[in-house]
């Protein structure tokens, strides 16, 4: 059971013990950790990309592009609320792959050469350790010797294949818990690497495997407030024009805007809603998913051809019953002079294929006989309507 936090208090003339000073430090540290793990979600806050440089090498007479991997300086929050700082760019040594993986290395035989491994995860953990012992550490009036500094260090390791699938099962600390010596390391995923066992070099860096990607740190909040007149959400590590952004602005009585950012940092208003509920859309308004929405297509089609679906309606929509189709076809009578025509058939089958056949009727001069001749080719006007429906209980096209 977690204890309530304590902070030190001091009185004049009080002997100052090391534990008192430790409590000063630890109180602040634990308070910061609590803030990080309760008001933020874990992940990479800044940097920590696996940057690569190509290094062509030769293996069995073939050129292989190997990768020199460097972890960019940056900061992550782990599930315990600790900041893991890499202060400077850190090379990922190729030798570390075999050292860390240790056991059998799994080769991906789907890659030519049979010497390239499957992707292995690159993991980061916090690693507090004692600093160097001061030159004059022993004191006549003290009983302890050794380091008086703790380095808030880190470890980068190549995990075992499949370790990325277990990261989500790591248990963060509770609100009142604190990290102690028995707390297991909390691993943060940085990416994946493939290793060439012949050249003993990395040959690929990737950021996604089995739908698992490095997490980005987030904010846990029920309210976000600004004292200014503009609140911006923007996607992009460094600000640059064209990044998708959402802006809540107090101007013009209040407005929500979405669009790409402009060079001056404002949002190019492609979609906005005013506080009065007026919506402005500068692109196409797709009402596809709105129940009852209609999409239409009309034209002329010859016998035997399937009807095209209205724009924005897919075959998948039809087969899943997301839309119901209604088709109307009327024959186009050829220019036949005095001839009349009879419609043999004019319909659309379940495949949406049009069937249109005409019979030309012509009579002799005195009208005593009528000659019937089937038209070789015929066409019809069509009008096709797709109606979006709420459920998928419908079974495809209903022409």
């Amino acid at each position, binding site marked *: 059971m977690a204890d309530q936090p304590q902070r030190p208090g001091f009185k004049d003339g009080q002997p100052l013990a090391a534990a008192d000073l430790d409590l000063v430090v630890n109180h602040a540290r634990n308070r910061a950790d609590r803030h990080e793990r309760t008001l933020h979600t874990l992940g990479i806050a800044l940097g920590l990309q696996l940057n690569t440089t190509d290094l062509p090498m030769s293996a069995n007479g073939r050129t292989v592009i190997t990768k020199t991997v460097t972890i960019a300086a940056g900061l992550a929050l782990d599930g315990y609320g600790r900041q893991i700082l890499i202060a400077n760019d850190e090379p990922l040594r190729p030798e570390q792959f075999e050292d860390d993986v240790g056991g059998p290395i799994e080769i991906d035989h789907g890659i030519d050469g049979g010497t390239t491994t499957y992707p292995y995860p690159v993991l980061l953990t916090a690693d507090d350790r004692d600093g160097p012992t001061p030159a004059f550490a022993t004191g006549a009036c003290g009983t302890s010797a050794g380091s008086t500094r703790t380095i808030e260090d880190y470890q980068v390791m190549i995990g075992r294949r499949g370790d990325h699938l277990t990261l989500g099962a790591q248990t963060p600390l509770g609100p009142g818990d604190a990290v102690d010596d028995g707390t297991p390391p909390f691993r943060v995923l940085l990416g994946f690497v493939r290793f060439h066992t012949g050249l003993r070099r990395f040959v690929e860096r990737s950021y996604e495997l089995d739908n698992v990607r490095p997490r980005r740190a987030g904010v846990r909040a029920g309210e976000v407030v600004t004292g200014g007149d503009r609140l911006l959400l923007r996607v992009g590590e460094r600000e640059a024009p064209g990044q998708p952004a959402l802006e809540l602005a107090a101007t013009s009585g209040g407005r929500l805007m979405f669009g790409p950012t402009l060079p001056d940092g404002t949002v190019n208003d492609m979609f906005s809603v005013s506080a009065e509920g007026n919506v402005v859309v500068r692109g196409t308004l797709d009402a596809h998913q709105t129940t009852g929405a209609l999409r239409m*297509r*009309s*034209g*002329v*089609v*010859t*016998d*035997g*051809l*399937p*009807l*095209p*679906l*209205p*724009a924005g309606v897919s*075959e998948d929509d039809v087969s899943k019953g997301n839309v119901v189709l209604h088709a109307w076809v009327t024959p*186009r009578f*050829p220019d036949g002079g005095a001839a009349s025509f009879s419609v043999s058939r004019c319909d659309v089958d379940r*495949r*949406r*294929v049009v069937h249109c*056949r005409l019979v030309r009727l012509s009579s002799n001069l005195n009208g005593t006989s009528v000659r019937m*001749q*089937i*038209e*070789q*080719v*015929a*066409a019809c006007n069509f009008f096709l309507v797709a109606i979006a429906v709420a459920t998928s209980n419908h079974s495809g096209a209903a022409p």
Partner: protein
Amino acid sequence: MLYIKSTGHGIGALATTPADLPSLEGIATLEVPVRVDNPAVPKAIAPNTLVFDVGELVLASVETEFTDPIEIFDWRVVETKVANGLIERRLEQSLSGGVTATRMPAPADTTIEITVNRIGIIQQLEIEVRTATEQIATRKALFQTDPVKVTVPLVPTVQLTVLVEGYKPVIVPRK
């Protein structure tokens, strides 16, 4: 526009606002009409509809100035491969009167003879012979002589349609 891959004959058209082509997904065969060059042939039954496997056909978007899609039946598509593996398509009017196809007299009436006039300096033309339901023979008209005669043996005694690249289809009446 729907056309026969081997000979280019236009066998269907659709005029609508610019959009995606109709999907042939889930369709194995299409029964479509052809406009033949000799409809007055005795015993010929018009309209002459033919069944094609969808794989024998091409559906492509072609810009035309036709007022009526039915006009496409008098035209064919000529494909030209251009850079980047793309195919450029242009329409050429199908010619009349350059092809005759006749069934040989009994007892050789399971053989037809197709006579094809040369078009310009073209070296060869594709030929398809079909019943109403399937393709039964393909040949090439190689113009070592002009016209060239092509014999197709062992054909059924039903009505046949002969499609020669560049010409309107012709009918060989049933026996």
